[in-house]
């Protein structure tokens, strides 16, 4: 019968299309990694408690604040997240933790200050919580997913004090259109980078290169990448003795300052990452020679940047003698107060917020990605199809976390960074030569660290 045939046909079509739709939506919307429900622990075990989280304002935190109701529903734990801009955050967290009676249970831990806080006894060791099978499903959580060296800042005296949240990795951003126009390829070493920057320097239209140089704006961080690149080290990793006047450190410093002097923008001495990144986003610089990889999302966003689609991403080229030590890579972590009254609840929060599923959603949204599996995930590739070089460069820096990373993880870090930054400015403005400046930095650092 024709009617029945056609009805069967249309019925089949409906079933097929329905299942196709279901299958399709499942594959698009289903998580690449299993959510918290798959964890073999009782999320409800701290029901009714409340925790206070103090954080430094970042996209990752904004995202977490938005989805934290999911956690509250899952566990019955009340979470109050307070976030502040970086300078304010550091002021507040110090005052809070040093009071001996902090209001914060969980807080963001900067790689630079973890040693300092641990020395004050303010941090709770986290391994017991990680190993506690009633609190943590290790298989589901996959702690090994973190790049080996990313924990170097938070493993102090053999104990684990932090769980990584988000990295700041140093990569180079450059204008592929300007390079093409000038017939240039990406440089093979730092000297070539310098030449390219000078060639592309076209004041007042655009500078050849931008970098940070402002005092108090974390300038020490990209600078540290440069001196490492030249084989130098801020502190000797074994003896912790500063090596600021070594020829390698001087060479790296010279290159950093030379780039800005000869191909940098006017007023470079006061450039923090705001000025540097917004110059680049406004098309006012050809090369952003080493800063946090997360800037990609604002550079590629046409509503925030005039260079969307014109940017290429790469690692810092090696120093001329081929000694390519890795660029600066650092991470923020979650730490827990040693005197918190809600430690289990705090740990549940940390575990949830950094679990694979949440980290993937957060990473896709904000580009703040710590876990290896997420760097390699298909979802990431599909979200940012136009910038595979960014994915490549960023994940390369993740692998360079381990071992070779040298950062002064000492409790005097604050003053050490300030010594370097103030002298960088003076050297740049010609108030003191690079050789004398670094010798002075060495002397001042030795004094602060009470060494000879």
């Amino acid at each position, binding site marked *: 019968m024709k009617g029945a045939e056609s009805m069967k046909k249309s019925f089949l079509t409906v079933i097929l299309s329905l299942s196709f739709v279901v299958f399709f939506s499942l594959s698009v919307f289903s998580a690449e990694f299993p959510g918290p429900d798959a964890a073999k622990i009782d999320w409800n075990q701290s029901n009714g408690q409340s925790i206070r989280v103090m954080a430094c304002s970042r996209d990752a935190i904004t995202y977490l604040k938005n989805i934290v109701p999911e956690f509250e529903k899952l566990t019955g734990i009340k979470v109050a997240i307070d976030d502040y801009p970086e300078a304010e955050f550091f002021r507040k967290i110090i005052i809070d933790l040093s009071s001996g009676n902090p209001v914060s249970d969980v807080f963001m831990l900067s790689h630079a200050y973890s040693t300092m806080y641990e020395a004050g006894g303010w941090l709770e060791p986290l391994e017991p919580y990680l190993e506690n099978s009633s609190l943590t499903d290790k298989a589901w959580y996959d702690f090994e997913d973190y790049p080996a060296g990313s924990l170097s800042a938070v493993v102090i005296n053999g104990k684990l004090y932090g769980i990584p949240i988000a990295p700041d990795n140093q990569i180079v951003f450059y204008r592929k259109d300007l390079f093409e126009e000038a017939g240039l390829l990406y440089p093979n070493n730092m000297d070539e980078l310098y030449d390219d920057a000078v060639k592309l320097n076209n004041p007042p239209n655009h500078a050849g290169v931008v970098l940070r140089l*402002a005092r108090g704006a974390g300038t020490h961080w990209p600078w540290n990448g440069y001196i490492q690149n030249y084989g130098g080290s801020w502190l000797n990793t074994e003896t912790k003795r500063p090596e600021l006047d070594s020829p390698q450190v001087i060479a790296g410093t010279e290159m950093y300052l030379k780039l800005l002097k000869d191909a940098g923008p006017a007023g*470079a001495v006061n450039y923090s990452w705001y000025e540097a990144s917004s110059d680049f986003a406004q098309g006012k610089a050809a090369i952003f020679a080493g800063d946090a990889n997360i800037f990609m999302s604002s550079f590629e966003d046409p509503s925030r940047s005039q260079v969307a689609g014109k940017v290429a991403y790469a690692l810092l080229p090696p120093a001329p003698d081929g000694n390519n030590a890795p660029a600066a890579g650092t991470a923020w972590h979650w730490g827990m107060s040693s005197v918190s009254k809600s430690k289990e609840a705090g740990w549940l929060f940390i575990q949830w917020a950094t679990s694979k599923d949440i980290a993937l959603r957060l990473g896709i949204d904000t580009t703040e990605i710590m876990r290896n599996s997420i760097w390699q995930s298909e979802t990431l590739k599909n979200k940012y199809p136009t910038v595979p070089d960014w994915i490549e460069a960023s994940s390369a820096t993740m692998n360079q976390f381990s071992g070779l990373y040298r950062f002064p993880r000492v409790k005097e870090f604050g003053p050490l960074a300030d010594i370097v930054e103030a002298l960088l400015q003076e050297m740049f*403005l010609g108030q003191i030569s690079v050789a004398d400046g670094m010798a002075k930095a060495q002397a001042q650092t030795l004094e602060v660290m009470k060494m000879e």
Partner: protein
Amino acid sequence: MIKKISQRHKIVYYLLLPSIITLILFTLFPFFYNLWASVQNYDLIYPNQKHFIGLSNFIKALTNQEFWNSLKTTFYFSGLGIILQLLIGLGVGLLFGREFKGKNILRTLLILPMVAMPVATAYIWRIMFSPSLGIINYVFQKIGLQGSEWIAGYNSVIPSLVIVDTWQWSPFMILIISSGLMSLPKEPYEAAKIEGATGFQTLKNITLPLLKPIISIAFVFRLIDSFRTFDIIYSLTGGGPGHASETLNINIYLNAFRNLDIGYSGSLVIIFLFLINIVTLFVIRRTGFEESILK
């Protein structure tokens, strides 16, 4: 003519007591805290290891090049600033003694720099000063003047900061002086008119002497506040380039919050207070402000 009530009315105490109690409660503790910290080796990270070290912190300060630099910078910044602010405050404040349309609106607008949120305006100035992104150099170049490095220059940073400080705080002087002007009695002026005094004579012999108490108080407060300037300098330069804009106040901040050396920064606070007291007393005595305000 100023006469005073010489009787010991109990009422004096009632009138003053609330203020005194409030101030004692909230200012004595911080002072003694800093005093106590200053004679100790107090590192915020190791609070249990602090111990008495006598005057070592003070000696460290007085033998420290950084300290003397910050003193010099402080005096440069404040000195330049308050003189400018006095001149502008007095000049514009006196202009408000005249009658013209829209006085109230203009005065409200004039106060805006002081009213606008310092947090926002600091960053706006930062952008305006930027040699490459900034409007000031842009305008200068358009009208044929040479641009400056402003806050990015070793020598130009303090004058640039003084510009911002003056922009923000001249309204303080203008407000106080202009409302003081309005409170002046009419009689002396009427008498002067009858005697045929010129504008300048009136200004010199009547207005300024009558205004002296108000002017001196405004000046002294501006002096004190200028030493305590923090927001502008920190947001615009962080104390840089190098240490060029690191005033004593900024230096205290860095020692307390970056070095976490509460002992040393405590001693700096004590020195700072001592300094301001001396400078204030000196200014009050030397400029003849004393009778107007201390007696």
